[in-house]
């Protein structure tokens, strides 16, 4: 029996194949390899049967505490949202899952139309002219937006709000090392005034802490200064908030994972990337476009490829090749299922629960909501003891939240030490109760609660 359980070759096959090639042993195929480097011992161990490997992975999985196993308020760009049963059933069909990039459009119309529809759905949501077929994630999409702005303006300074998600800012700074850009972090309220000489101004709305931001003002200021305005946003929020396209934004980016894609500890996810029509030739990534076949039947192809690495090589708008097409298909199925009403309902649920929860917590003498303004579906909670210790204390009670204390970027740490509380339609009443009770107890305003 074969050592690789997926190998079809019987010993008879191998012998016949060698004969046809005109060799006596497979080893002869490797004569070009330095002798002393051939057939290394790997030392990984023996192979396992599927049954054993499945059992092994179940053991590993059991060592984790899943989001669903207790009150869960961690969020940000990656969110625990309800995934309709039909999403994986459709998006994970072998026909999508095991296809390659659609190099032969005649036998890839499933992928190409689904991706074209993804682009169209996101264009509706963002009210932007053009959406590409995906980036790796929200972080690299943000970084690529900056690089695109640099190409468009010829400027090397990038101004970014310090209220942009810290992981996005990390990736931005890392990417910036390549082109040796100057990245300037400023508080949101100083963005407008810092646009001078910048290639772009990057603002997040709603921001990392859930606060709503007046993007239009920032976009206007940016344009004043000859800079572009890049908005980082979240798909569900746009069901209720004025979209980038209506705020004068030039490039809109974000993390698409909440659109029916599992959290999977950080990936694979979906980088949303959109821009104004006029900028498309500098856009990174693949783009599907509509056309017709030789019989005049509507069809789709990957187009504007002269932007891409396989044609333009070092002059390409990006090096991206393998992207996140399957995630884009997930998002398309998700949006098709939810429709405008469903998406609004999911978004409203997060907002309503967050606000209800914030009100209950704000009523605790030991706590205050630290957002500088109205917030959307997450908020920051400030207490005497500090967010870091509160997070640990909550974790001991099986409640998972995020602490701003871990928001370091390149060593530089943001001042505040709060806890961020994210709500979605998955946040239940009992989750909310658990959090309020625990916070009350930990921060010592038990009586206050009892009184209520």
């Amino acid at each position: 029996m074969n050592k690789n359980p997926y190998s079809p070759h019987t010993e008879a096959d191998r012998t016949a194949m060698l004969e046809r090639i005109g060799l006596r042993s497979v080893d002869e195929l490797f004569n070009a390899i330095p002798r002393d480097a051939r057939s290394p011992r790997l030392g990984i161990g023996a192979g396992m049967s599927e049954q054993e490997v499945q059992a092994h992975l179940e053991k590993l999985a059991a060592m984790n505490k899943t989001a669903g196993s207790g009150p869960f308020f961690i969020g940000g760009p990656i969110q625990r949202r309800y995934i309709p049963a039909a999403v994986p059933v459709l998006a994970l069909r072998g026909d999508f899952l095991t296809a390659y990039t659609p190099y032969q459009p005649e036998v890839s119309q499933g992928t190409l139309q689904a991706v074209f529809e993804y682009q169209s759905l996101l264009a509706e949501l963002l009210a932007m002219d053009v959406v590409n077929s995906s980036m790796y994630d929200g972080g690299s999409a943000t970084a690529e937006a900056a690089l695109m702005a640099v190409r468009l303006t010829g400027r090397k300074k990038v101004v970014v709000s310090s209220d942009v998600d810290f992981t996005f800012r990390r990736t931005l700074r890392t990417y910036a090392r390549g082109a040796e850009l100057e990245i300037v972090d400023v508080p949101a309220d100083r963005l407008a005034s810092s646009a001078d000489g910048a290639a772009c101004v990057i603002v997040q709305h709603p921001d990392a802490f859930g606060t709503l931001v007046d993007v239009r003002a920032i976009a206007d200021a940016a344009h004043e200064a000859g800079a572009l305005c890049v908005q980082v946003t979240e798909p569900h929020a746009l069901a209720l908030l004025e979209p980038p396209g209506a705020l004068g934004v030039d490039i809109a980016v974000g993390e698409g994972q909440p659109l029916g894609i599992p959290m999977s500890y950080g990936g694979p996810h979906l980088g949303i990337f959109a821009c104004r029509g006029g900028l498309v030739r500098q856009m990174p990534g693949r783009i599907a476009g509509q056309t017709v076949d030789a019989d005049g039947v509507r069809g789709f192809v990957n187009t504007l490829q002269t932007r891409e690495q396989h044609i333009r090589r070092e002059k390409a708008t990006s090096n991206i090749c393998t992207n996140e097409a399957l995630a884009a298909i997930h998002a398309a199925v998700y949006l098709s299922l939810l429709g405008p009403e469903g998406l609004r309902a999911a978004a409203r649920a997060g907002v309503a629960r967050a606000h209800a929860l914030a009100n209950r917590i704000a009523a605790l003498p030991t706590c205050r909501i630290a957002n500088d303004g109205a917030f959307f579906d997450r908020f920051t909670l400030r207490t005497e003891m500090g967010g870091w210790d509160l997070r640990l204390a909550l974790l001991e009670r099986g409640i998972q939240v995020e602490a701003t204390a871990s928001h370091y970027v390149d060593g530089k740490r943001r001042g505040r030490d709060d806890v961020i509380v994210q709500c979605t339609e998955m946040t239940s009443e009992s989750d909310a109760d658990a959090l309020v009770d625990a916070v009350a107890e930990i921060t010592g305003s038990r009586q206050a609660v009892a009184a209520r």
Partner: protein
Amino acid sequence: MTVVKRQPMPDAGATDVKALEPLLIELARPGRGGRHVRAEANADIPPHYQRKAPLGLPELTEPQVVRHYTHLAELNYSVDGGMYPLGSCTMKYNPKVNDRAASLFADLHPRQSYRTTQGVLALAYELEEMLVKITGMDFVTLQPAAGAQSEFTALLMFKAYHAKRGDAKQRRRIIVPDSAHGTNPASAAMCGYQVATVKSDARGNVDLEALKAALGPDVAGFMLTNPNTLGLFEERVREVCAAVHDAGGLVYGDGANMNALLGVARPGDLGFDCVHINVHKTFSTPHGAGGPGAGPLCVKMHLRPFLPKPWIVRESDGTYHYDTAREDREPESIGDSIGSVKQRLGNFGVLARAYTYIKTLGDEGLTETGRDAVLAANYLLALVREKYDVAYDRTPMHEFVLSAAKQKKQGATALDLSKALLDEGFHSPTVYFPLIVPEALMIEPTETEPKETLDAFAAALNRLADRAASDPTSVHDAPKNTPLRRLDEVTAARSPKLKWQRPT
């Protein structure tokens, strides 16, 4: 997909365009919709921020959505459906157990504490160890989302490495062979490097003399794919690497073709300073119609300090955490690390599949994979070599490149042949790459195609060669038997339609 001509669907909805399947907006009707999430009537949002722009998402029922994507799925060719001999893409079988295993980790958030994700960290740590053993490198980052991001990551590390040694300013150039994949020069450019190309020699190797001539104090590094994109093992790989090192440069290993080397040879033993792995090729994770993938980067000791953060640490008690987050706090400094290109462990859901695959195969299975992949390619070549020109006539590794130059003279281009092959029920090889081979047909069978399928594929290729010789025009309007016939790419690019137009 069984390769077949399709007719437009009968329930195509109110559209008069000729189409295989209507667009979602053509199927939608105002007032339709499902009930997937809990209803919620109000949300307290200041009027100034409220959406005034129409939210033009289509309104559909779940049954419509299911049919729509079921119909679309049927229009795709896939590995589950047939042989997919795309050179450089390693379209091997994607085991189903890998998908099930990965789904066990779906409900975990990357910002959870290491305390609640010990299983994730244990898996990732062991995967790093396994990749070290397979590549012969010393350390690994799992962060890059794909090969291209891994290249970019590595070149950022090269830059940091040279900066540390004080000569980053002068080292502005990256050299790539003329056979290099497009992502190589593109990644170099993203790193602010100038890109120089060295030609290949008559045996399809890097022209060592030309390389030496190009090397100098201004060179940051050299990017080498081995086996290269011609499917050929770099015969003087150690001299090549040594030359680069002598010039103070670093050698990047593009590991997209690692499938050929599994258990056969280790880049770490050949002189490379680092190598990336496309787990969506070598380690059988499904390609998802264009992604996701994952591109772990394996490096030698001297590059370790520059690896992206965080790093996984294993305590003596067998517990795991991140070096930058012993208490989930970031450090005051990340040292010489370039930062991070993705958060924490990158595309973990993909990496979990690769881990499952490696565990399933083990030492012997991996070795058999490399050997079978090379055997299959050589067998297939033997079956078709009479009828086609072979770009470089050497024993290839896991793939080989034919040239349809002869057929082009006869009147059938590589494109024609690739389309005609679709009519034969097979996906086409990679065409017109590598660029240095005229009318290139780049063919990679992988180890999972049965001999009888290789025979059938070879027979089809040979039939096409005969048609090219006898009746070349007969392939000009191929494909005829696919869901659609040739698509008008020119118009698509000249007057781009990049999203649907709402019916007004």
